[in-house]
């Protein structure tokens, strides 16, 4: 049994919150450069120019990339042979969020759904725990903005609808969202599981690197096919028209009930901010 101190978690989480909101991941930057080169319209190229200047400026000044520094989302793998001393892991993560959002001058966006009163410190974080073999703690953080989250959807398809139904629903969703979720977006898709599990698959898929290849060749082909179709919509950067409506499509699957075909589409804006740390 390995023991770590809760303070290690608090500090690691605070750093994750601050760094993720300041430094755009390398794969997203590279995708901007690749996509900007394919754009012919001056408006589309201008959006990529501004987004590039924006991430350079954020890095230089320490300002967040976007004022919407998100709800704090975590996927946490807890090793079976790990013990945390000082407080429980959930409490430590929330303390880390409080610290990171205060010290990093990040916006606190969590509020009561009815009164709309701000909780004041961006907690509670939304935490998905998993128990895994080993004695490590892996914490993946995502700053998830409201604009793209609002454009996300879950549906229960009929098994007969199959891939054609999935494809149609995803394209319809991105078409309908249009300029609202800050395109070019990353589209996370969860297929299978249950009504509640499909969206978790979709969200977790957004943690993948844009330039990775799905290890399942069938899913990799589906991701390519969907990305190409979505980019043919022509919505373009910020909805101003162009070849880049989406930066990437990531699909995650899980077995489902014989009666069901759950499908979740979780849209992420171009400011795809996530990082992970292992303790």
């Amino acid at each position, binding site marked *: 049994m390995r023991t770590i101190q809760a303070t290690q978690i608090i500090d690691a989480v605070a750093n994750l919150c601050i760094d993720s909101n300041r430094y755009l991941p390398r794969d997203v930057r590279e995708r901007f450069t690749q996509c900007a080169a394919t754009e012919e319209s001056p*408006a589309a190229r201008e*959006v990529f120019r*501004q*987004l590039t*200047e*924006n*991430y350079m*400026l*954020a890095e230089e*000044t*320490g*300002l*967040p*990339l*976007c*004022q*919407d*520094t998100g709800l704090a989302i975590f996927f946490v793998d807890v090793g079976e042979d790990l013990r945390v001393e000082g407080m429980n892991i959930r409490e430590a993560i929330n303390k880390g969020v409080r610290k990171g959002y205060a010290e990093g*001058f*990040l*916006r*606190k*966006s969590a509020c009561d759904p009815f009164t*709309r009163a*701000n909780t*004041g410190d961006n907690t509670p974080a939304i935490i998905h725990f998993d128990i895994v073999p080993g004695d490590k703690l892996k914490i993946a953080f995502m700053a998830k903005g*409201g*604009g793209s989250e*609002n454009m996300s959807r879950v549906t229960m398809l009929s098994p007969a609808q199959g891939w054609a139904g999935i*494809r*149609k629903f995803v*394209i*319809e969703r*991105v*078409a309908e969202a*249009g*300029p*609202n*979720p*800050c395109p070019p977006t990353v589209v996370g898709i969860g297929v299978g599981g249950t009504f509640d599990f499909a969206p978790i698959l979709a969200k977790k898929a957004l943690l993948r690197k844009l330039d990775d290849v799905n290890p399942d060749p069938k899913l990799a082909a589906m991701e390519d096919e969907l990305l190409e*179709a*979505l980019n*043919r*919509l*022509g*919505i*373009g950067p*910020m*909805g*101003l*028209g162009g070849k880049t409506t989406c930066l990437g499509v990531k699909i995650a699957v899980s077995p489902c009930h014989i009666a069901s075909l759950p499908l979740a589409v979780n849209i992420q*804006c*171009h*400011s795809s901010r996530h990082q992970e740390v292992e303790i």
Partner: protein
Amino acid sequence: MAEYNLQTPLTDEDIYQLRAGDVVRLTGTIYTARDAAHKRLIDLLDKSEPLPFELKGSVIYYVGPSPAPPGRPIGAAGPTTSYRMDTYAPRLHSLGCKASVGKGKRNDAVKQALKDHKAVYFGATGGAGALLSKCISSARVIAFDELGPEAIRELTVVDFPLLVINDCHGGELYVQPDRKAAGLE
């Protein structure tokens, strides 16, 4: 597509010349308001109480900035999605508000209000909060401080980069998605 340098408060003449796709660099005073602040503004109007700023000629920026770090007037300050303010915007335009700044689509009622009251809907680049922050030289909370990021702030902006999305002549910049090309039809 033309380029304009405009100064607040905006006039009917300023608005009338603008067409969807035009680039505008805006200088002067603008006011921030998003979901909760709009609700409060409408409540004040319903009670015939004075608003915290002059609506005539005004520009409302849909933004909830991140906190100002030491030595800066404001944190990151890019636009939020506009459709959530569609419920409130026509009434504010009818009382003289000349422009809103946000991102994303507006509904038909807002587009009609732009025509009826000679107003315009500007887009700013979503997710470019650090970059847009550079064009804001001062910020001061003038109402609803308790709303935190949603409080109404008076901002001084210099050459704030905007695109005309919906003009007062019925023009719109956003493209319709090509459903056929994507294999939907």
